[in-house]
């Protein structure tokens, strides 16, 4: 990349990156997920994950290994990121559907809610 052509190409590439983010901001209005739409630290989700594969419950350490998230903690982003992570992991690791997962969570200190996988 050199000279004027290089900078013009760079400018076009930069504009494309910015345009993609504009798209992500608009898309975020139609989904509970908040990826790439600049919603940092907008929600505090306190959660507790319980996982059963068949009849066997997973330990906190196994849950951490499985989802790369602590079994209990506070997430600084949309609660749906956590559900997305769990759903995608289970679709990949347990396509036969043997896993049963419960997430107890509360958003911004509100009332406790429950999320299940598979969704009832």
């Amino acid at each position, binding site marked *: *990349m050199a000279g004027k052509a*290089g*900078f013009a190409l*760079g*400018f076009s*590439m*930069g*504009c494309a*990156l*910015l345009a993609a*983010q*504009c798209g992500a*901001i608009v898309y*975020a*209005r139609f989904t509970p997920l*908040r*990826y*790439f*739409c*600049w*919603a*940092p*630290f*907008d*929600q*505090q989700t306190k959660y507790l994950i319980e996982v059963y594969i068949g009849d066997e419950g997973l330990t906190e350490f196994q849950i951490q290994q499985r*989802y*790369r*998230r602590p079994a209990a903690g*506070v997430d600084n982003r949309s609660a749906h*990121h956590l559900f*997305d*992570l769990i759903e*995608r*992991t289970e679709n*990949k690791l347990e396509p036969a559907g043997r896993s049963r997962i419960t997430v107890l969570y509360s*958003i*911004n*200190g*509100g009332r406790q809610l429950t999320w299940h996988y598979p969704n009832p």
Partner: protein
Amino acid sequence: MALPQPLTQPFRLTGLELPPQTVLLCRLLALTILFTWHPRQIQTPFLPFLPGLDELPPVLFQRTIQTVLVLGSLAILFTRRLRLAALVTGSALLLAVLSSRAYYGNNKTFTGLLLVLAACGDLRLIRWQFALLYFGAGLNKALDPDWHSGQFFHNWAGARLANPLYLWAAPHLPSLPQIICWSTVALELALVPLMLRRRFAWPAIWLSALFQCGLLVFTGDTFNLFFFASQIALLAFVEWPPSPVTVIWDGECGFCAQTKGWMQRFDRDGILHWVPQQTNIGDRWGLSRELLKDAMYSVSGSTIRQGYSAWRAMVVWFPVFWYAALAAVVLAPRPAVVAFLLFLTPLSNPIGEAVYRWVARNRHRFGDQTCALPAPPKG
């Protein structure tokens, strides 16, 4: 003893393929990656945003990204191939973000984008990026009921951080969380037009800097790379002096000559043009010999500064000043940010001026040459 050229490279900002602000921006981001030892956070691919990345050998992928981040950051600091190094380093960071939903974070995405956009070579892209970030953040908060009611801040500051200041103030001011939430939304959205218009660059810089510094002081948290990236990105709004800053100094004072020599060592870009007052250069701006005897003056465009203010306005053009500030914030975020803000704002003027005046009055006592000023009477 002169340092070898590659070792002086981090202190040069001009004569490269990118504007000086962009060079400094890239170097500070590279130092942030190294000082915070960010490569250790890089993970193996996990539920990637880009399909197929988890098909790659995971450890090889992780080690490659880590190596590229370290080598790319060093290349940004020490080589002249700055655009390429910034592009590669920023792309590696973005690839790491795209490779793992567990690693994903706004702070890493923003840092990666800043490097890539810097490599694109147009400062407007970085300004637009920053405006877009504030727009996205402000919009998301503005549409969230917990931000309308103040519940977010009440829970975060009270239950999560247990911030003593908030816990003390909240019972006296029940609407405090709501006020803070709405103020945050208003500030983030107001920063968007300010960042998009060149003539509002300084309000945008100060509002954004104070907002992010305030957050850091309140929480004690840099939010991983975010605080650093958000402060460094403000360089895209700064005008670099089109001509050297004229410094009028006492050419007959040994201590002043030593100070000048020391500062010139860091001034690799020749941004300071030193002229002794004895050449009568002060006449150009109506500065009498009497005035010039009391303090050093700096002239940049139509702005004339003296004493401590002149000295402060000179050191901020040295990259080494910002590198030291960055290192201090990494080591001790809260005290360093408070000290840094005090230094950059007029709040430090009374102490700074007093120290400067004392040094200026006693300058004949320092240094290894005789000063032209008469020594004060003894006894």
